[in-house]
């Protein structure tokens, strides 16, 4: 029997506004508990929310970038439930009239490229955090995060496997980083995701019963959690039972999903329009301003790199897929005027290092500035390409400044021809038999002499000069 999987993702993106969605409280990460909390965030009696337009502008950027419909009038609803880190006893969200509807995004896996449709993206406030392990027998509540604006991006249930789900998540992540609406920092929880998974027999039109997987915060876990869940659901069905609609929690340590609550236990959220907030209206002018100031997006960059800079399709694709990489490329290219050299390093050595360490470029120690210096030193002949590889490794490992590495390790390329000539002369004199053989026609021995000079100079000799000098001496 063959099975088909249907997956939908709900991605919560923390918008990088300075203040919270409904208050002037700061959204900065990592402050001491309960210090970035104002009266509204605490849900004190008598306080009222005021919607932060900045969050709307950021949401609209996302909508425009995904070709979505923008609801110029959108409204807020209350979602009622009790939890200690939910100060008001309800979350303010956009249930009936979200700011963004019906967009789409292109994703690419190793096998294929396709478009995933986005049902909606709506604004809502984040909850605080419950801290269970700090106080013996008690739970602490930290409200710093309470009220931080979230954009919840809901995909259509049309993702067909774990790899696509990861590709979708990655595409959304890169897009929000490109749009400068979220820092994309998964470790700090700037992006979180719930996954709806169901399976059905191949060819079956009706959707199977789904489970919602909560609390997944890394690419790796998305893939593992989905694959575990697919296997589990198939096992359940094949053993003659049926899948229960429920919320399941992914446990990354045990690599399994566990039932959190069933549909029967689910809250009745008693949604209703929030009477404290009037509908938020975005004027035509506001919309146009946002449109006019949208940054260049990955797809546009890719095309431009090929057409205007002359990069290979494969190079352009890799470089344009990440904002950090694209920025590194553009910065270094403008400094050195050698875009192809920059591209060669990014697609070659840098990508290899990323693969080796299995990290994203944002997570590496190499800053755009330092990378730019490396390329500059190659193109101004301070170091050779070969030396550059070892400088890069050092900068990659330790984040040390490229010029610093070149200086302390004395890696500056020897340009002075008189010094090189002296060394070359010495090599020629101390290897008479090889010289004789070379002169008798063994051309291949030329490489031997180059190698000896390089060895003597610890690779610092300018290879071009060495070639010329040796040719002259061995004539």
């Amino acid at each position, binding site marked *: 029997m063959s099975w088909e999987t249907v997956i939908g993702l709900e991605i919560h993106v923390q918008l990088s506004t300075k203040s919270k969605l409904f208050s002037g409280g700061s959204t900065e990460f990592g402050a001491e508990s309960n210090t970035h909390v104002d*009266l509204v965030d*605490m*849900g*004190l*009696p*008598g*306080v*009222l*929310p*005021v*919607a932060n337009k900045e969050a709307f502008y950021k949401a609209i950027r996302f909508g425009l970038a995904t070709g979505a419909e923008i609801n110029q009038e959108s409204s807020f609803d*209350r979602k*009622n439930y*009790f939890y*200690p880190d939910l*100060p*008001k*006893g*309800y979350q303010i969200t956009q249930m009936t009239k979200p700011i963004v509807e019906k967009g789409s995004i292109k994703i690419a896996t190793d096998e294929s490229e396709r478009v995933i449709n986005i049902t909606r993206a709506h604004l809502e406030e984040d909850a605080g955090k419950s801290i269970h392990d700090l106080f013996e027998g008690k*739970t602490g*509540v930290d409200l710093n995060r309470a009220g931080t604006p979230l954009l919840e991006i809901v995909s259509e249930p049309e993702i067909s496997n774990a790899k696509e789900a990861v590709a979708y998540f990655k595409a959304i992540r890169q897009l929000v980083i490109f749009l400068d609406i979220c820092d994309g920092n998964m470790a700090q929880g700037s992006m979180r995701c719930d996954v709806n998974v169901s399976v059905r027999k191949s060819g079956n039109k009706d959707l199977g019963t789904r489970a919602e997987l909560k609390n997944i915060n890394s690419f790796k876990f998305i893939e593992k959690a989905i694959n575990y869940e697919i296997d589990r659901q198939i096992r359940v069905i094949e053993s003659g039972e049926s899948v229960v609609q429920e919320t399941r929690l992914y446990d990354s340590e045990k690599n399994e999903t566990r039932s959190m609550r069933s549909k029967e236990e689910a809250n*009745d959220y*008693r*949604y*209703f329009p929030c*009477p*404290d*907030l*009037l509908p938020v209206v975005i004027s035509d002018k506001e919309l146009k301003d946002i449109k006019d100031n949208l940054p260049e997006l990955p797809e546009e960059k890719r095309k431009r790199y090929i057409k205007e800079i002359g990069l290979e399709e494969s190079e352009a694709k890799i470089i344009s897929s990440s904002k950090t990489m694209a920025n590194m490329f553009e910065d270094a290219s403008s400094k050195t005027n050698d875009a192809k050299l920059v591209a060669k390093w990014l697609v070659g050595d840098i990508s290899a290092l990323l693969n080796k360490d299995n990290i994203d470029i944002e997570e590496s120690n190499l800053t755009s500035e330092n990378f730019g210096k490396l390329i500059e030193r190659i193109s101004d002949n301070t170091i050779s390409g070969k030396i550059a590889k070892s400088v890069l490794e050092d900068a990659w490992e330790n984040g040390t400044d490229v010029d610093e590495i070149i200086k302390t390790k004395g890696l500056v390329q020897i340009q002075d021809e008189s010094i090189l000539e002296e060394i070359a002369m010495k090599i020629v004199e101390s290897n008479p038999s090889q010289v004789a053989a070379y002169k008798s026609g063994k051309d291949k021995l030329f490489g031997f002499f180059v190698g000896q000079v390089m060895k003597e100079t610890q690779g610092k000799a300018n290879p071009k000069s060495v070639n010329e000098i040796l040719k002259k001496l061995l004539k």
Partner: protein
Amino acid sequence: MTIKYKTIKEIKNMISQKEISNKEIIKEVFDQIQANEHLNAFITLNKEPALKKSEDLDNNPSDLPLAGIPIAQKDLFCTKDLRTTCGSRILNNFIPPYSATVIENLENAGCISIGKTNMDEFAMGSSNETSFFGNVENPWGKNLVPGGSSGGSAAAVSAGIVPAASATDTGGSIRQPASLCGITGLKPTYGRVSRWGMIAFASSLDQAGPMARTAEDCALLLNQMCSHDEKDTTSLDDAIPNFEENLNEPLKDKKIGIVKDLDLSSLDNEVVKVYEDSLKEFEALGASLIDISLPNLSLSVPTYYVVAPAECSSNLSRFDGVKFGRRSEDPNNLEELYIKSRSEGFGDEVKRRILIGSYVLSAGYYDAYYKKAQQVRRLIKNDFDKAFSNIDVIMTPTTRGPAFEMGSKGSDPIQMYLEDLFTISANLAGLPAISIPNGNIDNKPTGIQIIGNFLDESSILNFAHMFQTSTNWHKYTPEGVKE
């Protein structure tokens, strides 16, 4: 010299003529509070700060519009560093770190807040019998209710303790107690007065307003209470007129809408007579009566008792014993903390409304109740819009009768809900309305309600003031006519 039963305008005069010092005024207020302790009108007093402020004023006289005027604040407004209970056990230890915009506006105008007045718990009630802090007695008679929810504010003004009080009105909570206590109370247009710092009962209906002895004083107070507040997105930024300006405009050629759909036959003959006498008085002042139709008016009470509880069920979720207010002792787990804190902290009427509200919002019932009620609300609003196309104000009795005995409606919540029969529609439509004393039945005051068009507080104040220039009902005190 005394300020008992004096109006704001009179007291301002006394201060400027140096007939009385600011400190003497405030001392008298606190003496009066003590002498009237049986009324139970206050929950928390602000004695030391109030006396201090009056001394400061004596040392540095101020020309602020309400400088030195003592005012009682309903205990529903947050007051910085002064306990704010909302009449509930669950907030009996709550001291807000901030003040409501209304409080700030009044204090910035020179008012001296003398204390927090008793009220129905979370403003849910029409007799002040649901307060955790006990009943308020109507100064007009032992065992009579003062009305609700702003019962403490109404009683304090009625007894002549203070010339002014702040209050709030969600379905009649200013007008009904004003009527039952023989004073003047105004509910402004929804959005005129900021809701920032008002503990929410039903957000789309709640509106703060003044209580005083006269319409003129209400105009003085309203001038200071109103402001466009960026902290409240439902606060209107329409121009705020000087509400004193049109008080004396002649009523000649003005039109009063009389609701022909309103069935007064269930009311006491005497109540109807008092009401009709008032209408004749208005006619004598030059106004004419015009029949109008508000066909959906009869749906007001059921509509209100869906919308208000729904919003209240959500608004009161924050009182969970976790962050502020009273927490039940030694709960065994989180769920118990919630259940015990809320079961012990809320009284029966509040629980009843939370239950009704949760029910009407629950999955499967939302469309039949909440959504339908909002649609009806829209129809009621449309009725008013249409009616106001050719009239200036609408008049009705404020209540079905004068003050009733404590406990007399306790067992039947529906009887209590019908107390708001005439007042609720103005909240549903967001319109301004005032209640002024218009008679006396068995030494108990009655009130007439004047409803105005959207943002037209000036007209209702004009009608009310002209009535008060030609009648004495507002000068009656529990101790006799004050002249």
